[in-house]
């Protein structure tokens, strides 16, 4: 997987699952839910986010429900990566399973809305192309990177099932 380059959307602490995927739209199709993603925090986000844009946030990103739409909405909005001080466990797992790279990023306070970042999840390198600063972060664990490189859990399972058939 090559570097992801995109513009930054900046969020605060504890961006929770009800903000990412409001309960009122939980019964709706995934594509409709995605249009409501984070509307209580930044009503422009779902409308204006561009493919490859990068979300940068504080601690406990994704806290709350197991609802997969919290992570799937970011995939459908084509978010390139999420960098946060820390992640809630279920969100983190869901996001990786949908092929959305999540990196623990303690330097999140250095990053401003609109900065342009280059993120390499494999080598663990984040470059702020706007400020010129670069950061080393923990890369995504190898067993997970394999799945993300496959495109998420579904393509990964497909490959695994085909291998099983061939064996």
């Amino acid at each position, binding site marked *: 997987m090559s570097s992801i380059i995109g513009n930054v959307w900046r969020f605060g602490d*504890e961006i*929770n*699952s*009800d*903000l990412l995927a*409001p*309960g*009122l739209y*939980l*019964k*709706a199709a995934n594509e409709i839910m995605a249009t409501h993603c984070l*509307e*209580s925090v930044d009503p422009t986000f779902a409308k204006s986010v561009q493919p490859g844009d990068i979300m940068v946030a504080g*601690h*406990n990103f994704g*806290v*709350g*429900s*197991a*609802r*997969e739409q919290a*992570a*799937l909405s970011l995939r459908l909005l084509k978010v390139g990566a999420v960098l946060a001080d*820390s*992640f*809630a*466990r*279920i969100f*983190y*797992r*869901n996001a990786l*399973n*949908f092929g959305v790279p999540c990196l623990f990023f303690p330097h999140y306070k250095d990053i401003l809305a609109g900065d342009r970042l280059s993120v390499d999840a494999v080598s663990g390198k984040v470059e702020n192309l706007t400020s010129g600063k670069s950061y080393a972060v923990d890369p995504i*664990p190898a*067993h997970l990177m394999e799945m993300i490189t496959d495109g*998420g*859990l*579904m393509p990964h*399972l*497909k490959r695994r*099932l085909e291998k099983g058939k061939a064996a």
Partner: protein
Amino acid sequence: MGQTLVEKIIARAAGKASVRPSEIVTCKVDLAMIVDSGGPRKIWPRLKELGVGVWDPEKIVVVSDHFVPAVDADTAAILKLSREFVREFKIPHFYDMKGICHVVLPENGHLQPGMFICGGDSHSTMGGAYGCYMAGFGGIEMTGVCITGEIWTRVPETIRVDWTGKFNQAVVAKDVMLFLCRQLGMDNAFTAIEYGGDTVAGMSMSERGVLCNMAAELGCETGVIAPDETTLAAIRAAGKQPIADALTWHSDRDASYLSKHAFNATELQPQIAAPHAPSNSGPVGDYAKIKIDQAYIGACVGAKLSDLRMAAEVLKGRKIASNVRLLVAPSSQKIYADAAADGTLGILTDAGATMLASGCGACAALGAGVLSEGEVCISSTNRNFKGRMGSNKAEVYLGSPYTVAAAAVAGQIADPREFLS
């Protein structure tokens, strides 16, 4: 070195003699629980896409609880699809509108100490009250579990929390958890929590369930309590025999913990969590006189029989304030029936409560009881994030069933001890 209960269960499920924290292992799943919201409707299309079935229908429990009863064509279609899914894959354990999954599973004897269980809902941690590992996963991961019967996990470090002493009047497990959300924060991802001490040993399974349910609010992977005679009695009451080695599932004396915390139950006051996080909590006195529009007693965590009885203690012979609506949704149909049989239900309705169906409903803005802009609610549920119960301009306070009932009578947040003899 010894191991914690969670490490022992993970090791057993991974087919290893022992595991150490941060090790990544693949576990065989003893039971998979999926629900209408993130279960069949998300999993079935993926099974079709892959051209596969489920790994073991006997080990999958399906519960329709989030969108029950249907309120429109969309929710009706979701519930219909769950019924068709169960028929298609010949899944024998299906609870359709019987109550909320985390309560229905133990009611029907599905939980045993030492089991490794994946649940498609974040509050699956509640199962840990039975001394099993039970954790929440999203629909995408439950798809993988339903196909392979396996899941990977990074062995969590365990946080140990001990409570000693006797609670004051109107102080219950819910107050413990609102206090702990403030003390430990909600950012404990990739850890497990284990509760102990004589206060916990003296708790009913219903109250222990609250501690483990809200391990989710602490951000923990699971919350566990080592099984004892109370656990075994609950398994028998559900019509099952406890497994032979049930009482061997506990942490070793020399187990290593990430941290240990000890608290004195006698010092705890009734707690309130203010908008918009369970960790934004404090003693009830700090929030006195905040006017409310709605009081809600519901959800997996807050409308079990013991919770309804707490509310009834406050409401007996009283009426709710004229400007307030009190909604009550018992956690399960069985609890509804038990509350009707023992007179609890009559006390609630005499006081002016509106009874709702058993299900997730108002707690997650999925069914009857949602809030409008500017409204204030006090709720016995577990989450009060912005937009959780409806409008993102509504405010939700959390409290125990005692505290919710007291607010319903007073029309404002009030100390429940003023309403108890």
